[in-house]
């Protein structure tokens, strides 16, 4: 499960990107994406992609595994690309490069920054209800993931899931998700009780203070400027 692995990478790494705070890294990612939107030149986009992969390598992150996480985006992009073939292969290539590079720039930030630090930044732009719900989504995702794993194991042991039996599998999946949904609704009512007991009145997304500026924040900022200059000159 990607989210689990991303969370793990973010909370267990020690690179200079891990140490930088969320805001400059988010600026970094946005700059890359702006560069991607502005440029239509495959060579520049390919250079950006290689640059990001190299950055991942320098950060000692598992490059291939993170690149693999852009799989879905790549597939979507290919569908768009294939349906637009114009004789030249350059435009489809451009589309795929854009999609994958953009996704990678976000993943670099996510695999070096804890979710909740990013949410805490977003909380300053989002309505209270949405920002707090984001935090709740994050926490409950891991609680429910564990339950989903356990339910799946229990069904597997009773042979409700096996490689060749598609219909049995679909039915079992329906059962599993049914149980999961019901438990999720129960969990949500217990969680409201817990929030009430602990005095919650809204606004928890802003409890996490944004970190102060540190020397580590220079790296993503310098890279942002470089990306923007790069697209201005070469893109």
């Amino acid at each position, binding site marked *: 499960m990607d989210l689990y692995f991303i969370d793990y990478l973010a909370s267990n790494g020690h690179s200079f990107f891990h140490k930088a705070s969320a805001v400059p890294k988010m600026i970094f990612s946005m700059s890359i994406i702006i560069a991607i939107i502005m440029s239509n030149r495959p060579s520049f986009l390919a250079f950006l992609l290689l640059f990001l992969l190299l950055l991942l390598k320098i950060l000692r992150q598992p490059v291939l595994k993170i690149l693999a996480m852009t799989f879905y985006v790549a597939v979507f992009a290919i569908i768009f690309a294939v349906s637009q073939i114009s004789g030249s292969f350059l435009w489809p290539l451009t589309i795929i490069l854009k999609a994958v590079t953009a996704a990678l720039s976000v993943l670099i930030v996510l695999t070096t920054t804890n979710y909740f630090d990013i949410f805490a930044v977003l909380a300053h732009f989002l309505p209270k209800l949405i920002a707090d719900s984001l935090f709740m989504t994050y*926490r409950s995702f891991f609680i429910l993931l564990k339950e989903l794993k356990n339910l799946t194991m229990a069904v597997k042991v009773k042979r409700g899931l096996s490689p060749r039996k598609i219909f049995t599998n679909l039915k079992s999946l329906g059962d599993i998700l049914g149980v999961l949904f019901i438990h999720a609704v129960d969990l949500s009512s*217990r969680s409201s009780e*817990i929030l*009430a*007991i602990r*005095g*919650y009145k809204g606004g928890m997304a802003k409890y996490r203070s944004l970190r102060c500026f540190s020397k580590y924040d220079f790296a993503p900022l310098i890279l942002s400027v470089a990306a923007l200059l790069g697209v201005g000159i070469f893109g």
Partner: protein
Amino acid sequence: MNEIVKVRCLKHVYPDATEVSVCGLDFVVHEGEKVVILGSNGSGKTTLLAHIIGLLKATEGEIKVFGKVPTKEFDEVILNIGVVFQNVDEQIIGPTVEDDIAFALRNRGVPSGEVDERVDAMMETMGIANLRRKIPHYLSGGEKKKVALAGALIANPVLLVLDEPFKGLDPIAKEEIIQLLSEINAKHKSALVITTHEVNLVSKIADVVYVLSGGNIIARGNPKEIFLNPQVLHQANMQPPDFLVLFSALREVGFDVGFPSTMEEAANMLAELLRKKDN
């Protein structure tokens, strides 16, 4: 001592028409008292706790906490109660351990400098200072318990309510929790209300024991009184701690040697007895 909790013949009907009653004796907790609630599965322990903390509204009966009705004056009452539920995983809301422990204080608008200080002190007390920046879903069961306990204690509650705090823990972790609870009780004079199925631990933590059975509170007393009352034991389908079983067995075969309150006392008493017989 002041009564801080008083429940008289509580009845609750759940939406699916399940009726739960806790009648019979009154359920009373005094300031600083350590109270354990015993009773079989489904006897209404959790239901009773939910009423005390104002989460459920009684269909019938009288519930007073700090002299107030908890459902009516929820905000005031809950301010002085700390709660640890059965499933601690669900109770940890904050994205990191320190955030979670600080949660109640921040909700109350305590200034952030003070929050930090109090969180630090609390983590020190609980021996979890090293977990500060950890993410809750990477903690072990025992660690999660301690984090939840710290989060409940941070606001210095007058009353601490714990639903099966020992469930699923290994013996050493249980001892640690008992130790922590005793310290907190001694230091802050927080009253404790604990439900459990672990009779062997009761005499280590309880001043007073309540026994729930068949919709009634059928007994109140110190652990020894309760465990030596065959009628209560029988009625509640309960087993006393092992060392008392042993002493009861001895009594039945004609050796009435009195009854110990704890394991250590039991060992001492037996040794004494044997020594006496030797001479």
